[in-house]
């Protein structure tokens, strides 16, 4: 279908006006971020899967540009260029087209996203609950009912890993691989038997680091082998990984009971209110206790918003595909003709503004609604 008829256009516009009215009434400033964005900002921050789906082109000066594949980063860039103090609280809403190469049959290459982004929030769980409430209210204003809400919490996972006794570099790797369940499992396996890692073509280079200054030793090895130094990866970076590999060999294995705790956590799912009891059975530590209090406070905040979190589903595994989130993640599905259809999603992403050039970390929480999917469900 090469475009919309006037009737279709009007129906979508009417639906989206109802969605935006909810956001605007709640005090969110209706902005219009740029459609054309510098490509690097998206391409450097998303994995190759999103890059593969982004429309990239060059301007006459050879700069790489793209059509925004999503509106969160454009809203962040709007904030960074307009706000006097980027750390001060700001609440935006938007309605605009996003562009992606279709990844499956019937997925559109341009679609309208409605969403909100709340920067510099001072009451974290309050803001999270409010964003979820407004997302649900907007979907209901559009005419949807029987919404299925799923939540995850990366704060719990990070706290769990932070509370365990293991080298920092292992923590970093586990958190990094959280997004990739198979690689995560392989890593966990490796940490339970660090000395059993089989020798490879580079094991001799690792041997050569023993008892030496890693950077000097790696530099000496490279010149001894007569290898030219190509690419921007420095000798220091190469040496750092070699010495990590050396340290791993003699590291105490990750205790079996810790692996069990991680696995137990990742298997937790159920009603958001029911899983509180499951979470309580995990061992106590300052970090994890803090994350659990946060989780429980969020439940209360959701109730304060007039929502019924008992009906929300929690899955510790959820959010494993959404890379920039740092805490709460959620998605909302509706039963469609054949299968449930995801119509909205969101969460907390406290690192993104800093990553995009803010002078310091700025808390952020937001959501986005896929408006054509809402329309499709209602049709």
């Amino acid at each position, binding site marked *: 279908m090469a475009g919309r008829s006037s009737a279709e256009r009007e129906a979508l516009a009417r639906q989206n006006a109802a969605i935006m009215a909810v956001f605007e009434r709640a005090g969110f400033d209706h902005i219009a971020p740029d459609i054309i964005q510098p490509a690097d900002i998206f391409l450097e921050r998303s994995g190759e899967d999103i890059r593969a789906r982004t429309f990239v082109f060059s301007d006459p000066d050879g700069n790489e540009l793209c059509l925004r594949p999503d509106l969160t980063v454009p809203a962040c860039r709007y904030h960074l260029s307009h706000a006097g103090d980027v750390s001060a609280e700001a609440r935006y809403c938007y309605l605009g087209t996003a562009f992606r190469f279709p990844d499956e049959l019937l997925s559109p290459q341009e679609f309208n996203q409605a969403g909100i982004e709340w920067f510099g929030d001072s009451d974290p769980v309050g803001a999270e609950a409010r964003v979820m409430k407004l997302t649900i209210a907007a979907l209901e204003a559009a005419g949807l009912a029987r919404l299925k809400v799923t939540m995850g919490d990366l704060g719990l996972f990070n706290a769990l890993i932070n509370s365990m006794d293991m080298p920092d570099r292992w923590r970093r790797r586990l958190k990094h691989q959280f997004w990739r369940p198979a690689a995560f499992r392989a890593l966990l396996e490796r940490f339970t038997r660090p000395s059993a890692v089989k020798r490879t073509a580079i094991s001799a280079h690792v041997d050569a680091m023993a008892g030496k200054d890693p950077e000097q030793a790696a530099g000496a090895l490279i010149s001894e082998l007569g290898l030219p130094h190509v690419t921007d990866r420095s000798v220091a970076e190469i040496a750092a990984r*070699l010495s990590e590999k050396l340290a791993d060999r003699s590291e105490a294995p990750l205790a079996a009971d810790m692996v069990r705790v991680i696995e137990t956590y990742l298997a937790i799912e159920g009603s958001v209110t029911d899983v509180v009891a499951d979470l309580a059975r995990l061992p106590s530590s300052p970090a994890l206790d803090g994350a659990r209090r946060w989780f429980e406070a969020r439940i209360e905040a959701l109730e304060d918003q007039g929502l019924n979190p008992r009906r929300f589903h929690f899955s510790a595994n959820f959010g494993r595909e959404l890379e920039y989130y740092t805490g709460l993640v959620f998605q909302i599905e509706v039963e469609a003709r054949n299968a449930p259809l995801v119509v909205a999603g969101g969460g907390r992403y406290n690192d993104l503004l800093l990553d995009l050039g803010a002078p310091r970390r700025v808390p952020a929480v937001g959501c986005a609604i896929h408006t054509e999917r809402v329309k499709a469900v209602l049709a």
Partner: protein
Amino acid sequence: MTATTLTLGIPSKGRLMEATAALFAKAGHGLERVGNDRGYRGRLSGLDGIEVAFLSASEIAGQLREGKIALGVTGEDLLRENIPPTDDCADVALRLGFGPANVVVAVPECWLDVAAMADLEEVAEQFYRSHGRRIRVATKYVHLTRRWFAAHGVTGYRIVDSSGATEGAPAAGLAELIVDITTTGSTLKANHLRILEDGVILESCAVLAARREVLSEARVQVLIRALSKAL
């Protein structure tokens, strides 16, 4: 008389064309150039219902995918790059053996800390932390690269399209590593690149590929049997 003539795409020139012509001749179905369109159309001696189209080697896989040709001789690398495993429109009917070459992941030899794909994701993360940008992979095999990297849990990279002299990209500062085709590895060696231990994506050779719907046809089976005897 057969209902419709099937088109067989053959590379129009080069060593792949010569080896193909020799194999077909040995199989008793030599390539004969015919028609007004002299030079670009042909037939197979002793086999009716299949016409030959002499095409640029890079077009054959794409034309198979689009159904413009029913059969084609091409490199398995190009076939796999153009037709994903999830798309069963066409597949290898017979491996022809000639034109052997591997599609490989290769990194600078000076990366002493990188042995395998598992190292790459860590390097990608480290590189992003210290340089603020993704490591770049130069390749013309965009789809093969994406599938292979995804299967090995490597995500923090960017693909840089490269259609020629890919092996020079790291030294030229255009990419950090490459995915490319190699026969002896000597070009990689000359450019101080090393293949990862689990970095062989595909052991490619020339193949006869066929659209699924024609595979069971008698004339296609005759051709496959004759060619496999001649191998």
